[in-house]
C-alpha cells in the first residue's frame, strides 16, 4: 500500500505503541539488545518505546523484576557519597588510578539545565560543554550526569553516564558508579561485565558526540573508571577497565541489528502494542514478531516468560539451554529429535550425523541403566 510506504517510519513505531509516552532507550536496553541481536521482538518493542513490563502483564505474565528498597537505598547512598563535596572522592580516585596530580576540578551538574530536565536540552548543553572542554587544554571540568545520544536500530537513544572526566593525560574518561562491592580488589565478574558493556555504549556515544563536533575521537580513552564500594565498607574504590573488546563487540552487534522500522513495517496493519488494548489483540501482534528465546533471557527481559512458553509450545531446542541446542544441529524441534530416537521419523541428510549420535547415546543409556 503506497500510503504506508510514504509514512515516516517513526510514525509506524509510534502508532504501534499507541497513546502511551515512549520509554526511553537506555544503555541497559542496548546491551540487552546486543546480547540477543536475533530477537526481532525485543528490537521492535524497545524501538517503539513500549513498556515491556506492562505489556507482559497485559498478556498474563506478571513481571518478576523489581528492585528491593534496601538495594535502592544502598545505591543512592553510595552515589551520594562519591559525589559528595564536589566529587571529592572521585577526584581522589582519579589521582590514585591515573597517577596525575589532579588537585581539584569543577563539576557541572547536568541533571538539569537552568531548571530544565528535558533530555534534548541536557544533551545540547553536554555537547556545548564537551566542545568547550575539548578545545581548551587546561579546562578542568567534570560533567555530572551528561546526556549523549546514539543511533540504535534506527532510533535515537538518549544515554546518561554517571560522569565524564575532563582531559587527563590527554584522554577523556567515562565514569560509572556501581554499588556492588569489590572484595580484595575483585568484584562479581558478571556485574563488572555488565558495567563494562554499558560503559562501551557510553564511549561509543561520546565518540559520536566528538565526531559531530569535529573533534578528534582519539582523545577519548578506551578505558573507563569503575567506582564501587571497597570490601564490606562504603568507601569508594576505583579501577580503570579496558573496553576495547567490548567496544568491538558492541560495534559489530549494532551493525547487525536489523532496523526496527523494517521489522515493524512487516507487521500487519492491524497490529498494535498499545498496552491499553485487549490481551488477544496484543498477543496476536507479539506473535507476529519473531522472538529468539534462550534461557539467559530470563535474567534480563521482561517478556522472557511469555517467550519461554511460546518456545515450549513449539518445542524449541534452545529452551533447554546451549548444551542441548548444540547437540541438535539442524534439528529445529525437540519433538523431531524424539521422533528420530523413537524411529518414527527418518532424519534428513543434514541431520543424519546428529541423529545417529543421539540414537547411539539413547541405546547406551538403555543398556547401561539396566546393567546397574
Amino acid at each position, binding site marked *: 500500500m503506497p500510503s504506508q510506504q510514504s509514512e515516516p517510519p517513526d510514525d509506524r513505531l509510534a502508532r504501534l505503541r499507541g497513546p502511551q509516552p515512549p520509554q526511553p532507550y537506555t544503555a541497559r536496553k542496548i546491551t540487552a539488545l546486543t546480547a540477543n541481536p536475533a530477537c526481532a521482538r525485543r528490537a521492535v518493542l524497545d524501538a517503539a518505546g513500549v513498556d515491556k513490563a506492562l505489556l507482559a502483564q497485559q498478556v498474563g505474565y506478571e513481571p*518478576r523484576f*523489581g*528492585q*528491593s*528498597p*534496601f*538495594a*535502592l*537505598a*544502598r*545505591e543512592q547512598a553510595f552515589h551520594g557519597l562519591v559525589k559528595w563535596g564536589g566529587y571529592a572522592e572521585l577526584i581522589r580516585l582519579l589521582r590514585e588510578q591515573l597517577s596525575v596530580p589532579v588537585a581539584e576540578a569543577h563539576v557541572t551538574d547536568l541533571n538539569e539545565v537552568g531548571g530544565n530536565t528535558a533530555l534534548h536540552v541536557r544533551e545540547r548543553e553536554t555537547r556545548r560543554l564537551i566542545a568547550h572542554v575539548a578545545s581548551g587544554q587546561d579546562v578542568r571540568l567534570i560533567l555530572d550526569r551528561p546526556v549523549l545520544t546514539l543511533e540504535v536500530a534506527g532510533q535515537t537513544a538518549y544515554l546518561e553516564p554517571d560522569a565524564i572526566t575532563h582531559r587527563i593525560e590527554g584522554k577523556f574518561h567515562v565514569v560509572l558508579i556501581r*554499588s*556492588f*562491592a569489590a*572484595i*580484595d*580488589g575483585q568484584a562479581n565478574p558478571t556485574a563488572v561485565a555488565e558495567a563494562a558493556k554499558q560503559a562501551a555504549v557510553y564511549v561509543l556515544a561520546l565518540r559520536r558526540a566528538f565526531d559531530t563536533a569535529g573533534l578528534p575521537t582519539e582523545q577519548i580513552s578506551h578505558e573507563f573508571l569503575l567506582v564501587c*564500594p571497597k*570490601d*564490606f*565498607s*562504603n*568507601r569508594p574504590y576505583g579501577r580503570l577497565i579496558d573496553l576495547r573488546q567490548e567496544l568491538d563487540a558492541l560495534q559489530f552487534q549494532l551493525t547487525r541489528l536489523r532496523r526496527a522500522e523494517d521489522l515493524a513495517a512487516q507487521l500487519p496493519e492491524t497490529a498494535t502494542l498499545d498496552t491499553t488494548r485487549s490481551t488477544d489483540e496484543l498477543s496476536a501482534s507479539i506473535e507476529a514478531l519473531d522472538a529468539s528465546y534462550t*534461557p*539467559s533471557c*530470563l*535474567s534480563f527481559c521482561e517478556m522472557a516468560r511469555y517467550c519461554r512458553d511460546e518456545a515450549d509450545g513449539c*518445542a524449541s531446542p534452545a*529452551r*533447554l*539451554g*546451549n*548444551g*542441548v541446542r*548444540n*547437540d*541438535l544441529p539442524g534439528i529445529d524441534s*525437540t519433538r523431531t*529429535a*524424539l521422533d528420530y*530416537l523413537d524411529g518414527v521419523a527418518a532424519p534428513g541428510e543434514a541431520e543424519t550425523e546428529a541423529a545417529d*549420535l*543421539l540414537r*547411539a*547415546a*539413547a*541405546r*547406551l*543409556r538403555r*543398556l*547401561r*541403566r539396566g*546393567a*546397574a
Partner: protein
Amino acid sequence: MSVLSTVAALTASRTGRAEPLTTVRHQHLDEKPFVLVPLTLAGEACAPLAALVGTDPERPTLLTVRQPRNRAERFRFAERLAALLLAYIDGCRTETEPYTVGRGREKEERLRFQRAPQLLVPNGEGIAYVRLLGRLTRLRATEGPYAVDSSVPTLGKWLTWFAELAEFPNSGVLLAMTRLLAAHWATGQSPSEDSHLASLLAWIDPPEGSDGARAAREAEDPAVWPPAGPSTDPVFDRTLHELMTRYDDASDDRGREAVGRQIDRELSGQMLPTWRLMWRGVELLRDLPEGAHVPDRWALDRRWFSEYAEYLDADGRPQARRDQAVRAARRLARLEDAVTRYEAERAYDDPLVMAEYELTGEAFTGTVTARDEDRFVPGDRPGSQVWRPTITLRTSTDTRVGLAVGTEVKSPARPGQAARILEVRQEDDGGHTVVLQLKGGFANKRKPPAPAGTLAETGEELTYTTLNPTAMPSALPDEENTPWTHGGPPQPYEPTDEDAEETWE
C-alpha cells in the same frame, strides 16, 4: 553436558519427569549433615539477614538480624552461628582411626577422625556466601579496640576452609543442593532454571497428581516458593523494609520486641520452604546407592579435616586475603589432579557415566571370546620370558572403538590389572575384535595358571577405558623446599590492624 545428558533432557521434556543421569550417588552424604539456609540484605556485599541452621530436619534453629545495618548485631549473628557450627565441628572430632601415607621409607602412620563435618547449602550462591562470611570474620582481632568474640575468627577460618574445599569436585564437605541434584538427574528445563532449588526438585519429585514441568513453573512463583537465598525476593523486601522502619521507630522496648518477633516470623516464613526442600533433597539422594569410590573420597575429606583441625590447634593463623603465587600454583595443580581423578572414579563406579566415554570412543565394551592363558613374551633382559596372557574381546555391531593399537587401558572390573591393545580389527558386521595383553593383577603370580577370578572368563562382558583413577598426580616440591627462584617458602599471612578494624556496614 554430553550427548547422553541431552538424550536424558529430551526424554524428561517429553515425560515431564527428571531422568536419572547416574546409577549411583557420587557424593558422600553424611548421616548428620549441617544444613544452612542463609538470607542476606539486598544491595550489600554480605550483610546476613537471617539463617535457618541445624542437623535436625524437624528442629531448625532460626537466626535473625533485626537491624542488619548495625555492626554489633551482625557480629552477634556471627557469634550465634559460630556457637552452632563450631559445636557441630567439635562433635566430629571424637574417634580416630589410623591410616598410612607415603610409600617405602617415607611410609608414615597418622590418625584421622572417623567423622568430618558436612555443610549443605541450597545453591551455588550459598557457597559464595560461606566464602564471603568467612572472609569477613576470619581476620578479626579478639583484643584491642575492635575486638570480637574469639569464636568469630574461628568461625571465619572454618567457613573459609569449607569454601576452599568446595572448589574440589572430590570433596564433599560443602555442597550446594542444586548442583548435587543436577549432577544426578536431568530435567526438561535449562541448566540456569535448574539452579532454582524448588523447580529442580519439582522435576525430580513432582507433587502427586502433577507433572514435573508444570510443578516447576508453579515453583517459580516467589509468593509461593520464596527464593532459596541468599538473595531475597524484592517484593518481600518491601514488607521487611516496612517492618524494619517500624522496629527502628518503636517508642518503647515492648513495642520494639513485638515488631522484632514479627520480623523473625516473616524471615522464618521465607526460609522454611527451602529448609524442607533441602531435607527432601537429602532423602532423595540417600535413596541412591553409594558409588564404590565415595568412601575413599570421604576418607580424604576426613584426613583434610583432621589436618586442618590440628593446624588450628597448633598455629591457627587465618588464610590470607589472597593466595600467594606458590600456594596458588600448588592449589591449581591439586585441583586439576582432583578433577581428572574424580572423573575417572565416577566412570569406574557407574556404567551410565562410563557410557559417555564409550560414546566418545574413550572406552569400549565387549564380550570375551578367547583367551591365551599361557602366553609368554621376551622380557627386557636378554633371553628372559615374561608371562603376558591375552584376551580377545568382541564388541557389538555398532560400537565405536576409538583407541589405537598400543594404548594402555584398564577395566573397572579389574582396576589392578594393566592392559594394552595389541590388535583392533573391524568385522564384517560392523563390530570390532580387540586383542588385549594383560600385565599384573594376578595376585602376585608370575606364571600360569592364573588364580581364579584374575583372568576374564570367556563370555564375560567387560569395559576397557583409557581413564585411570590411580594415575599418579603431578609432583611439586614441598612447600618448605620452594626454591628461591620462586620466592622461597611462602610466609603465612599475619592479620593486620587494618583487618581487625575493617568496616562492615
